[in-house]
């Protein structure tokens, strides 16, 4: 990464973090993190559970004081100017931080008043945001009756009341089903369209790829890699092709055939007998074409061919040389896009 000015992070930097550290007893939650988020962009912070993502967000939203290092958000120092800083940020946490006993409208109105809007403006802003996040019909119901996705949308709406310059999304889709996750992603994209700078923490490569333009990978409180998503993906090794023959008996012969073909730079295919499929890591479109060609030329019936994004585990393995430190949940790696056979 090139920086215009190493001290301030440059003119267009909305969030600047230098040498940020936070220890809990002997545990180093953050161990000298540097980070720059350019104005109007989405920075993804990718890391496993316990990597320090939430600690970073809590420091940047003044909920936690750092032990060492500096951080500024929209020019305000997290330690010296917490009140001014709080005025320009929005926070959507891992757990929906809305008052569940209160109706959606009341939640938004309350936050408007706490942000010093007049009664009339707070009312108008609550109506407007409920409309925008498709919650108008549920406006008068307590948030406890909302679905997971509605609650998360209300949470996003609450974060937007003060028209923040910088929005923190701390694992915004953890625990949501795939459909709801897509809804949240669409909302986030719309907000970015409005010019908000976003710092997004996530455990999912797919989420980072969908929303972020740049990525910082952190592990055990340290930045292990950073840069534009495309650069990182190239380093990680792109995608995997998953082939599922109709007859599982074909799995091993198919793998052996791909090995013998000798496609340049192609890694060994991995057989998954439980799933009845075969995963072939592909680094380029040429490799992908060659593999699909070889498989179809064999003339066996194929139930499906899909491409997969690398999972967080794979990203870690290739960027750090070791597996992500904390156990991952059982969600399968990335989405599967159908490939025309």
């Amino acid at each position: 990464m090139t920086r215009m000015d190493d001290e301030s992070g440059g003119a267009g930097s909305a969030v600047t973090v230098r040498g940020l550290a936070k220890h809990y007893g002997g545990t180093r939650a953050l161990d000298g993190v540097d980070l720059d988020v350019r104005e109007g962009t989405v920075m993804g912070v990718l890391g496993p559970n316990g990597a320090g993502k939430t600690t970073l967000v809590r420091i940047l939203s003044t909920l936690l004081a750092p032990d060492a290092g500096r951080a500024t958000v929209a020019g305000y120092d997290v330690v010296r100017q917490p009140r001014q800083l709080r005025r320009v940020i929005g926070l959507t946490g891992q757990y929906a931080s809305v008052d569940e006993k209160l109706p959606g409208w009341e939640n938004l109105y309350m936050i408007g008043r706490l942000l010093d809007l007049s009664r009339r403006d707070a009312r108008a802003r609550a109506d407007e945001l409920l409309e925008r996040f498709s919650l108008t019909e549920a406006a008068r119901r307590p948030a406890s009756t909302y679905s997971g996705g509605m609650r998360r949308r209300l949470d996003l709406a609450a974060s937007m009341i003060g028209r923040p310059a910088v929005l923190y999304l701390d694992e915004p889709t953890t625990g949501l089903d795939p459909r709801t996750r897509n809804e949240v992603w669409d909302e986030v994209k719309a907000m970015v369209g409005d010019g908000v700078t976003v710092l997004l923490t996530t455990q999912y490569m797919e989420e980072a790829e969908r929303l972020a333009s740049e990525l910082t990978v952190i592990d055990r409180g340290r930045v292990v890699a950073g840069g534009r998503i495309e650069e990182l993906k190239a380093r990680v090794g792109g995608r995997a092709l998953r082939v599922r023959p109709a007859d599982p008996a074909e799995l091993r012969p198919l793998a052996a055939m791909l090995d013998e073909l000798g496609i340049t730079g192609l890694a060994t295919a991995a057989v998954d007998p439980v799933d009845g499929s075969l995963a072939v890591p592909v680094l380029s479109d040429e490799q992908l074409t060659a593999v699909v060609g070889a498989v179809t030329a064999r003339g066996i019936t194929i139930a499906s061919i899909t491409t997969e994004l690398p999972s967080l585990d794979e990203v870690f393995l290739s960027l750090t040389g070791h597996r992500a430190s904390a156990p991952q949940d059982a969600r399968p790696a990335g989405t599967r896009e159908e490939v025309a056979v």
Partner: protein
Amino acid sequence: MSATVTSPDHRSDPRITLRAHLRHTGALVRRNLLWIRQDPESMFDVLLMPVVFTLLFVYVFGGSIGQALGGGQHRYVQYVIPGMLAMMSMTLSQGVGTGFSQDFNSGVMDRFRSLPIGRGSVLVAKIAVELGRMLFATAVLMVVAVLVGFDIGNWPGLLATVGLSAVFASSVMWVFLTLGVVLKNAQSVQAMGFLVLFPLQFGSSIFAPPNSMPGWLRHFTDYNPLSTLANTARGLMTGGPVAHDLWMTLGWSAAITAVTAPVAIHKFRTKT
């Protein structure tokens, strides 16, 4: 709060004006009132407690303690009702701590703390709502009191008593707010509260005159703020000397607030 302002770390941060403080507190009070509307059962305690306690004490102990006081049940009603008022100001203060630790276990407190509001506003709003609940309980108590034969001889005295109870209660609420911030869950707050409240309530002049108690206990009851509050209430409502007990009660309130309010705010500010 002055520590924050004089600290060089906050020099460049503007102060929150009093008007803004009031606006923030108002918004948070509204939130707590909406909770009550959502969940009317949460008012059961303030509705039932004065009824149950008054009936129990007047009809179970009223005859015998009244005799000891040189009268009958009516004599005891005149004695115990001002004491009840004192007791409620303490018992109901507990609620402020339990609701608070529930708040902390949800993410909403993070939201509040990431907003540009004075952190004391959240605490002050809690106290304001809890005082409102207490006034409601007081009204219920007075209705029951009149039904069991209490003579409100002195209306200004009654109002003064209510005011003094509110002052004392808000000082006790700071104690429970501190517990609410420090302790992990609502159950711990309740258990701790019970351990503190029970000896204070019964080791006082609330339910029975302390003159038959052993000497060591009388020392305790003499200085117990619940005794001084109950004695002041009696003096104000049914006549008698008040000055000494009134000053004691005000002194206790001031001392409790001076010690616990800064602790509560500090713990709240730094809680992660």
